[in-house]
């Protein structure tokens, strides 16, 4: 991949030219006051006092040097606030940087997620990394390249348009050359971006749009250290925490001295109802934690509604806000000939990372808390931990390292907080904390259970006149956003921090009601969110948030209406779908599925579903072929197809990997997964009690991408979650005439549906 040759740069029409006299004469330094005379003046704000709106996260991190450094060793340092969650984002932003700077990608060094080094880009979530981070990198790199070319043009008194650049070497037509490293050696790009330098024309791309191999894979495939779980620091100690038997618990008593006397134990830490132990070896910490657990006496209460009772609980929940997020009354007066209704349910789902969460914290002798963590929100989590520990914000230094895939807000932040709580007790010694499997399964914040009720009124001619969707959900965003109450252990300290009452997310991204507004154009269209803030079990952001259940409901119901009207489900959708890119993916996936068999085989079925994630990100249509065994009730997915449009593709193979992974994970949620709990305890405590999809159950997945050169990057990591659930329900209905409206689609529920003869 490093052998890609870079053709001479061509001048782009409309590219701005710099006033030569404005260039600072001091070699290698570009002034903050650099006055630019740009052709793209319209991009500048009309009001001189208002800062220009900059692309992506340049808007919030406006200095070029915050993103890019040109190094003396002929490398480029790219600094990003977004972090690698195992989805390949750093490979993609590296491609964008190399592309726009015109350097070989092998020169790019990426620093990510270190709160003292990188721009604060907030949380890495919500499929935002490509539109926000990659777009910022694109514009920042294009602008830095332009500045470097302008410096060379100034030096040679030549027009900038006449210069060429190849791998950081600028050449004039008369044979002079200067390198990027000559030009800014020892200097800085300490100036604000203007955002007015147009990125390259897509026809010139050599890195963007290429399936570049992931930069982290050779390390991961050969066992070189990269995960925080592998981090070993000199003098490092190991820790375990002891969790209560249920969420609402108070530690009454514990025999600390017995654990304290065990081999290798350095310190038992009790702070209110938070209990932990630090030892020389992990096995010693583990053994001591078991002794503590045995002797601990807790006061608990029994308030949980159980996993079967949760749906009724949500509908009757005492504390909720009701909000109409869409209320479009129908202007026309056609008569309603029939009304269809359905209710859909999703249970709590786990992130269920393969690696349990881990962090290493060191309380240094100068009272800095340095934490290596795999959080999605290094800045906000650092701030939350500082407040929890009573430290000034600038004394907590978070350094992101990769962990096992998280798919949302799992226990990464809690592990960081627990490691810090314990490290504070042993100044100078790094403390490594990793949870047990049961702790991860039982204490992580789950994706919220939801109830969605849909209603459609139909005209005599079979048109949907009024569409009404109501949803009931717990919060989906309970991240540590600077508040200690969102860190699990902070709630159990002697001076506890309360959980801040979470808010729902508003437009355009939404949270519980993400994708609750169907992209279809109906004459009457109402959507109502019942947002329940009281959380009987811990919940927070899980891949797709509410979109998973909302798309499942919308796309199942569209099929139910089509079936009732005896029309083709694809034609039925296209009738109400005006967005051409949406139509394109739906039609594409239909063609991948191929023509319908003339005679339908018994117990075999096909189903399709579509959504544009958040109605603003990746377009994604999913199709399945399934076979249902009516005796056992088991559903076997034979083939899976995806058609997607993620705008301008940066790394097509990376996008395919994300979509396929999302589909398989959602298939796992939909076929198998449900967090089980009684009135006191979470019962899903390991992979036996919370099974996930296995190799023998994973279908072949065929994916086609529609590239949109020059269009904005659209995040794709969560696009398949909702359509997968609905396409599966629709395929099962096609196969056996049973409509599954409660996730997961277990064999019992299939058999129950068959027994009822339900449709």
């Amino acid at each position, binding site marked *: 991949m490093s052998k890609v040759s870079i053709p001479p740069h061509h001048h782009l029409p409309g590219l701005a030219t710099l006033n030569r006299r404005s260039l600072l004469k001091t070699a290698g330094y570009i002034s903050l006051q650099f006055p630019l005379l740009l052709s793209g003046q319209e991009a500048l704000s009309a009001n001189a006092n208002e800062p220009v709106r900059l692309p992506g996260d340049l808007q919030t991190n406006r200095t070029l040097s915050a993103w890019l450094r040109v190094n003396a060793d002929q490398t480029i340092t790219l600094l990003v606030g977004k972090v690698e969650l195992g989805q390949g984002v750093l490979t993609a932003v590296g491609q964008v940087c190399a592309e726009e700077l015109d350097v070989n990608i092998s020169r790019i060094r990426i620093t990510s997620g270190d709160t003292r080094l990188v721009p604060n880009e907030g949380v890495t979530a919500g499929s935002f990394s490509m539109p926000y981070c990659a777009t910022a990198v694109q514009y920042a790199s294009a602008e830095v390249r332009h500045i470097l070319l302008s410096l060379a043009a100034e030096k040679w008194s030549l027009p900038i348009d006449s210069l060429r650049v190849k791998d950081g070497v600028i050449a004039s037509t008369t044979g002079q050359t200067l390198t990027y490293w000559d030009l800014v050696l020892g200097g800085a790009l300490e100036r604000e971006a203007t955002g007015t330098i147009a990125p390259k024309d897509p026809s010139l791309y050599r890195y963007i749009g290429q399936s570049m191999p992931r930069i982290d894979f050779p390390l*991961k*495939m050969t066992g070189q*250290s990269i995960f925080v779980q592998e981090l*070993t620091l000199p003098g490092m100690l190991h820790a375990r925490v002891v969790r209560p038997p249920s969420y609402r618990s108070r530690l009454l008593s514990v025999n600390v001295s017995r654990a304290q006397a065990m081999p290798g134990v350095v310190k038992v830490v009790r702070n209110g109802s938070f209990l932990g132990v630090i030892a020389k070896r992990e*096995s010693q910490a583990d053994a001591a934690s078991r002794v503590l657990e045995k002797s601990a006496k807790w006061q608990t209460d029994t308030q949980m509604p159980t996993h079967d009772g949760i749906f009724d609980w949500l509908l009757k929940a005492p504390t909720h806000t009701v909000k109409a997020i869409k209320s479009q009354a129908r202007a026309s007066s056609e008569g309603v000939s029939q009304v269809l209704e359905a209710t859909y349910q999703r249970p709590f789902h786990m992130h269920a990372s*393969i*690696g349990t969460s881990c962090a290493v914290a060191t309380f240094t002798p100068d009272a800095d808390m340095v934490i290596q963590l795999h959080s999605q929100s290094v800045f906000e989590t650092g701030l939350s931990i500082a407040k929890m520990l009573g430290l000034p914000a600038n004394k907590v230094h978070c350094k992101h390292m990769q962990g096992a895939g998280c798919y949302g807000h799992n226990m990464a932040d809690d592990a960081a907080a627990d490691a810090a709580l314990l490290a504070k007790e042993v100044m100078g010694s790094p403390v490594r904390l990793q949870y047990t499997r049961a702790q991860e399964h039982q204490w992580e914040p789950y994706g919220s259970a939801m109830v969605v009720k849909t209603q459609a009124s139909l005209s005599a001619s079979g048109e949907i006149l009024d569409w009404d969707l109501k949803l009931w959900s717990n919060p989906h965003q309970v991240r540590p956003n600077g508040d200690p109450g969102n860190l699990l252990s902070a709630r159990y300290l002697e001076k506890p921090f309360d959980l801040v009452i979470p808010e729902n997310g508003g437009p355009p991204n939404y949270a519980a009601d993400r994708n609750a507004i169907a992209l279809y154009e109906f004459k009457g269209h109402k959507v109502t969110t019942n947002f329940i803030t009281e959380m009987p079990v811990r919940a927070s952001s899980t891949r797709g948030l509410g979109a998973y259940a909302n798309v499942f409901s919308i796309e199942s119901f569209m099929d139910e209406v089509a079936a009732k009207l005896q029309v083709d489900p694809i034609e039925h959708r296209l009738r109400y779908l005006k967005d051409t890119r949406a139509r394109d993916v739906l039609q594409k996936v239909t063609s991948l599925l191929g023509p319908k068999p003339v005679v339908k085989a018994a117990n075999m079925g096909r189903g399709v579903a579509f959504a544009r994630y958040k109605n603003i990100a990746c377009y994604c249509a999913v199709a399945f072929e399934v076979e249902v065994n009516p005796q056992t009730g088991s559903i076997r997915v034979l083939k899976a197809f995806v058609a997607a449009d993620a705008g301008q593709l940066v790394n097509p193979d990376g996008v395919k990997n994300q979509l396929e992974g999302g589909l398989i994970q959602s298939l796992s949620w939909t076929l198998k997964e449900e967090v089980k709990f009684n009135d006191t305890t979470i019962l899903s405590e*390991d992979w036996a009690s919370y099974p996930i999809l*296995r*190799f023998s159950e994973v279908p072949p997945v065929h994916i086609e991408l529609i590239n949109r050169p020059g269009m904005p990057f659209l995040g794709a990591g969560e696009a398949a979650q909702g359509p997968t659930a609905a396409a599966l329900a629709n395929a099962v209905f096609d196969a056996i005439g049973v409509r599954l409206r409660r996730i997961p689609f277990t064999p019992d529920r299939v058999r129950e549906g068959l027994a009822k003869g339900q449709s």
Partner: protein
Amino acid sequence: MLTFKLNGQRVQSNAAQSESLLSVLIEDFHINGSKFGCGRLQCGSCTVLVDGKPLRACGAPVSSVAGRSVQTLEGLTQAGVPSRLQQAFIDEQAAQCGYCISGMILTAQACLERNPNPSEQEVRQALDANLCRCGAHNRIVKAVLRAAKKVGS
């Protein structure tokens, strides 16, 4: 004192005999490949090869490998060059987060040694007790088949 072979080198461990092989590999020998996943023999992240056979290192006491030969992901790489199977995983981009991959590669290595030319179904069967949460299953299967093809050629 306990002696065993680790990636071809004779090593000694002073750890308590009851300590898990996984802890000893990580803490005393700084092995990165083998990961803690569940501690309950359910996920396969910690898989190592003992005398060529897959073993879940989280549940095996270190004493169980006395005098035996343990191979980890690191041990497949020779002089910095990834093994054929490791290279096939790189070529197929067969991962997302990669946390489960050490267990996948070592389980597949044992599968290929037993059966150098497996069918796709046999590969799926061999890996069925190894869990991946990212959904990289199909790529992993392709990588194993790719390496197998090279063995045959």
